[in-house]
């Protein structure tokens, strides 16, 4: 059992919901990311999603696109992010999933990448442009090494597809709240409560909701029907707002705490 699965067991026993925080690795710097991960853990993030920057982030909105480009300009690579995770693991056991487009992983090589990610201390992988049907090879290595391969469900997913996806799912299921790209939104459609409940009835794997969530109230609403809530762009925006201020990690942690504490 990896750290993500252990965390959900622990939360389930306490009847609690997961707060999952996304940040783009290397924005504004890898050193800042190191400090942010530790600060977010203290602020109540149950799982950290580390975004791997990519040149062509087609599933991301403006906020994460910009963070990705800034990070790439500073020379962030997948290898450096694995080194960062290794360094975090010396002092923290917070569950970490990498969120990456498939090309950097494919270039690395499926098997080598899973081996190195596992040994660095990565617990899960979220790959928005890798549907189950194309994930066969990578999934084989991931299952063998107990790295959770986390798949998506969307409001447009048919029941038939959903049943296939939950069968392959590891760690948790990432339920996309709206058809669209990542980015904070004023509201999340009410219809997804029914869809998330339907997904939860199909599987024991926890179902967490992400995309567009940016306020404590939204977090609370969604936690009433999901196993966890994922917040990304709102945190990335907050990081950008405080730029290179010395107390940036503390300020971002305070922002996250306002959301995580409602769970």
């Amino acid at each position, binding site marked *: 059992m990896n750290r993500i699965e252990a965390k959900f067991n622990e939360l389930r026993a306490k009847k609690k919901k997961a707060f999952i925080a996304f940040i783009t690795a290397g924005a504004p710097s890898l050193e800042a990311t190191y400090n942010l991960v530790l600060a977010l853990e203290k602020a109540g993030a149950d799982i950290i999603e580390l975004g791997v920057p*990519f*040149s*062509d*982030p*087609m*599933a991301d*909105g403006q906020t994460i*696109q910009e963070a990705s*480009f800034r990070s*790439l300009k500073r020379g962030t*690579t*997948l*290898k450096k992010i694995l080194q960062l995770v290794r360094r975090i693991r010396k002092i923290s056991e917070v569950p970490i999933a990498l969120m990456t*487009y*498939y*090309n*950097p*992983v*494919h*270039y*690395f090589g499926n098997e080598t990448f899973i081996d190195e990610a596992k040994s660095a201390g990565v617990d899960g992988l979220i790959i*928005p*442009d*890798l*549907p189950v*049907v*194309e994930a066969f090879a990578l999934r084989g290595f991931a299952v063998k090494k107990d790295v959770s391969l986390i*798949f*998506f*469900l*969307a*409001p*447009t*997913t*048919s029941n038939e*597809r959903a049943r296939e*996806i939950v069968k392959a799912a590891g760690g948790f299921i990432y339920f*996309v709240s709206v*058809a*669209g*790209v990542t980015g904070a939104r004023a509201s999340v459609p009410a219809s997804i409560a029914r869809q998330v409940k339907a997904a939860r009835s199909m599987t024991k794997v926890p179902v967490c909701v992400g995309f567009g969530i940016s306020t404590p109230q939204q977090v609370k609403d969604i936690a009433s029907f999901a196993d966890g809530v994922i917040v990304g762009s709102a945190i990335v925006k907050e990081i950008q707002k405080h730029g290179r201020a010395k107390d940036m990690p503390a300020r971002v942690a305070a922002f996250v705490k306002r959301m995580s504490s409602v769970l």
Partner: protein
Amino acid sequence: MSMPDKNGHFGAFGGRYVPETLMTLLLDLEKEFARCWKDPAFKKEFRFYLEEYAGRPTRLYYAERLSRQLKSLKVYLKREDLLHTGAHKVNNTLGQILVARRMGKKRIIAETGAGQHGVATATVCALFGLKCVVYMGAEDVKRQALNVVRMQLMGAEVIPVESGSRTLKDAMNEAIRDWVTNVADTYYLIGTVAGPHPYPYMVRELQSVIGIEARKQFLQKEKMLPDYLVACVGGGSNAMGLFYPFHRDKSVHIIGVEAAGHGLHTAAHSAAICAGKPGILHGCKSALLQDANGQVLNAHSVAAGLDYPGVGPEHSYFNAAGIAEYVGVTDKEAIDALKLLSRTEGIIPALESAHAVAYLPKLARRVKGHKTVIVCLSGRGDKDMNTIREVLRG
């Protein structure tokens, strides 16, 4: 074996590498296109618009003065440049717009590089009264200002894309973002044999009219099959359209010409097959220009329509399987070829198509004896006059 397989794979390439939100739609589109393509009424309607509106069949023209100059080659030009809108792109947009109408979609989006696909999309949207939004890299908006005016005249909204390298690949990213957001009422009209399945297959089928006609015309004129086919390859739709109907003819040597920009040994080119490695971009696995960390590199070509770091997956398969050969032609060679064709035949080709013409002198030196060749003249050069003027001024 017939390609692609049921998940859109051409050997090791192709597939559907897209966000989950789009998967159900892609499966629907695949079913809808399969239904259309089997339906005689659809084919009749498609044929009607190709003939009456776009001006098919296009001529297979024997370029006598060019051939004489090249000595060892008898060159036929497949005149896609004479189609309405000035390039082969309209074959595909007419087919897809008919599919989109059957699916009840009201809003059409497209990406464009040189602007030819944007123009061809704006054209068919005007023809059928559908809303049209075209994403175009801000850099290309500048390079191809006349095509922007053409699109706007026909009622399309052109959105300049400022992210990334501000060229075709970024326009495609932005189009995919729009699509994933407006998936219920929007049809994404992809302009080439790339993207997720079923697009590479569907666009190949729609563009195959080029090769089907050329094969018949050549057989009529020469009573045999051609020795060579030559076409330029960016995404590769005109090339696949010409190549596919010949791909089982063992005696026909198929050559795809990629844009070598400043040279294959430099970083400034667009030759994904000649100089790239397998990778995943915009929904499919194919040859891709990328760095040692799997980040996609910016492409370069004097021809905006070839300025793309990837290539259609079936071309990667054709290359791997030895069905076709892929070569590179530099910016300078393409411009020389543009001048050559202008002066010998009175035909000014698009800079993209000039890449295909530019391979002819090399091929002429390579062949033994006297050989026949069909070149796909995919578009005309009117749109490139500004670029040409700048290049000629130095």
